[in-house]
């Protein structure tokens, strides 16, 4: 106390007279008020403009949408409405439902619909039946990214993004969960699983998973594990809660229906900032085949049959188109459906 009073007495006063103001107080306040009104006008005007320019939703068609096994292709429209088209006639009539999802996948009457109710709203992993009635909803945090169902319809997995935790950083994390519809076992994140990396136990705070794909035994799965700048293909054992790394530079694996190959995104020249080449790994020979799609693909591809991959390409205006390409590296990419993403062959 005493010490501080002496400082005060000795120190020159740090708030000396201000420079003569160019503006009087009234002028400054008037300017501020006028600018506030003008800026508010700009903001409100822009908000009004964008809200009226929002893409209108497609009206639901009279035809009911059923996701039961049938030779149909399930997709979402750009606004997220659930639709189906005939697998052999994708240009034919598209059945459109009112139900909306951000990502969808379905198999054997289990429908996994990852849905965010507004951009900052709640996100849930909705598990629906073939008639789109809800069986279970699991709250999820983050932004919907990937979703898969095992061929039997028993296992469901999803990936969501979680943004940086602080205003100073822009770190992304992913959270990948698995739900067993038969036993009710739920893992909201795989980060508690034990990791065997290059044959040795491994732990690191930056472990992140995304893009699960299941095998037919409903226990073994493949996924991408990120740590220290590497994106490994891992094979997981759900019952044992373990994963082990298989190879580097593999993202968003998707197992072929016959279980012999994995379609994935291969970072171009090992650098994901340059984009991804859609490629196929043969699990028996470890041979990688690059597909004929030379544009960058950022999607977890879906197998329409044992030789055809479907994936999304996004235009600069945000609309999405669905493309197919043969999995053996032959042929050319073909446009399958406009205004569509999140494909799954229902049968």
């Amino acid at each position: 106390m005493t010490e501080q009073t002496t400082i005060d007495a000795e120190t020159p006063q740090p708030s000396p007279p201000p420079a003569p103001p160019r503006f009087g107080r009234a002028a400054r306040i008037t300017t501020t008020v006028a600018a506030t009104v003008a800026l508010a006008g700009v903001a409100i005007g822009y908000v009004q403009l964008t809200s009226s320019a929002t893409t209108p939703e497609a009206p639901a068609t009279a035809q009911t949408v059923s996701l039961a096994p049938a030779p149909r292709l399930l997709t979402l429209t750009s606004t997220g409405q659930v639709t189906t088209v005939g697998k052999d006639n994708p240009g034919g009539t598209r059945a459109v439902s009112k139900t909306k999802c951000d990502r969808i996948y379905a198999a054997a009457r289990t429908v996994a619909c990852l849905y965010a109710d507004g951009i900052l709203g709640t996100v849930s992993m909705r598990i629906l039946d073939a008639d789109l009635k809800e069986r279970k909803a699991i709250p999820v945090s983050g932004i919907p990214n990937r979703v898969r169902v095992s061929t039997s319809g028993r296992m469901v997995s999803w990936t969501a993004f979680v943004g940086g935790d602080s205003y100073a950083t822009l770190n992304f994390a992913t959270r990948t969960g698995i739900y067993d519809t038969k036993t009710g076992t739920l893992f909201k994140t795989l980060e508690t699983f034990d990791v065997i990396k290059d044959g040795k136990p491994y732990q690191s705070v930056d472990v992140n998973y995304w893009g699960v794909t299941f095998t037919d035994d409903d226990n073994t799965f493949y996924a991408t594990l990120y740590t220290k700048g590497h994106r490994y293909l891992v094979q997981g054992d759900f019952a044992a809660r373990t994963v082990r790394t298989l190879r580097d530079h593999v993202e968003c694996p998707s197992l072929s229906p016959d279980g012999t190959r994995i379609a994935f995104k291969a970072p171009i020249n090992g650098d994901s900032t340059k984009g991804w080449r859609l490629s196929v790994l043969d699990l028996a020979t470890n041979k990688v085949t690059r597909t004929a799609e030379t544009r960058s693909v950022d999607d977890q591809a879906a197998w329409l049959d044992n030789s055809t991959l479907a994936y999304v390409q996004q235009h600069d205006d945000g609309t999405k188109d669905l493309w197919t390409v043969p999995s053996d590296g032959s042929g050319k990419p073909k446009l399958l459906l406009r205004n569509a993403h999140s494909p799954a062959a229902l049968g």
Partner: protein
Amino acid sequence: MYLSSIDRPTADDPSPPQHSGRRGLALVGGNVFALGTVSLVTDISAEMVTAILPAYLVLGLSFSPLAYGMIDGIYTGATAVLRLVGGYVADRIRTPKWVAGTGYAMSAVAKLGLLAAGRSAGAIGLVIAVDRAGKGLRTAPRDALITLSAPPHALGRAFGVHRAMDSVGAFLGPLAAMAVLAAAGQVLDAVLVTSFCIAALGVLILVLFVRDRHDDRPATTPVSPRDVAELLRAAPIRRLLLAACLLGFAVIGDGFVYLLLQRREDIALGWFPLLAVGTSLTYLLLAIPIGALADRIGRLPIVLAGYAALCAVYLLLFGPLHGWPLLAVALALYGFFYAATDGVLMALAGPVLPEHLRTTGIALIQTGQALAYLASSVLFGLAWQLWGPLTASRLAAAVAVLAVVATALLLINRSTTTSDTEVTA
């Protein structure tokens, strides 16, 4: 609503204010309220964007997992250097206000830049770099202006007021973003445009209402790099810088603290952001009272108490408490840590630094602290990987104890000499 308070204290009064009869917040001075208002408005704008940025990049632009992880960290070094340059320039041209204003303007323009960058990853990276550079540029001159705008014995309170107003902005930002999204039918572009308008208003308030420093001394020779070297030769300043680095090294980062709390208590991931909210709320409520307390009983004990609280938080991560008591105590201590250290350390540093090199000195201390923190968070990650989170957090607590003891040895009983230096500087 703050405009009336900005103008209250002696805007056109040529004589120095008499504070014998004035108490409480009036002591802090109008310029601090003006700077606080600028920070409040700017933080609303910044946090609006922070709230939607992940959704914007991922849902709006379809970026894939961790495509942007690399952005983090790269700029930390660059902004550290820029902060030093900004501090030096502010002292050399003797106008911290305009250097800070440039920083605020850069961040405002970046909001529109994000819109213009479209889907180009390179352009988005560049825009975010500009935004961070703006933040790096403005922090030191702004804090220097605060130290020059309030009497030395009320600096703790002045920083408390500023940081509290800053936190209010950070609170309102996400709410504003939600309101805009509701009105605009979930169109993210509308948030960016609104955020720009709010940031522009912040720059305008700075230009119109914040008064620049006023030098009593005539501008004989401009500040030269030699003066900066001299700054480092002064023992009290060197001790302060060393202490700031030591204290920075004791911090492992919010991310790790919240992650360990979340794992310990198995908090549903949806509640995860509330950990940060709990900390900010404590910070917001305590910033002014603790700043005032620091003015009364001394700033160094408060800073040391803050780091002691941090050490307690590290120990609690694997301590005896469980459930809600653990969360309540840990977040209260963590918020107290921020309230007792962030602004109070600047209030401690301000009077030690000579006025003509105030911004450079503050930039130096903040940069030292930031780089030490960066090193410590990397090492903590490494320790986690090698020995697991329990050992890593115990190590962090040990480092915090060492930092507190070393800082106490460096700075206690020297406070008289530091104030002597200030007077003769």
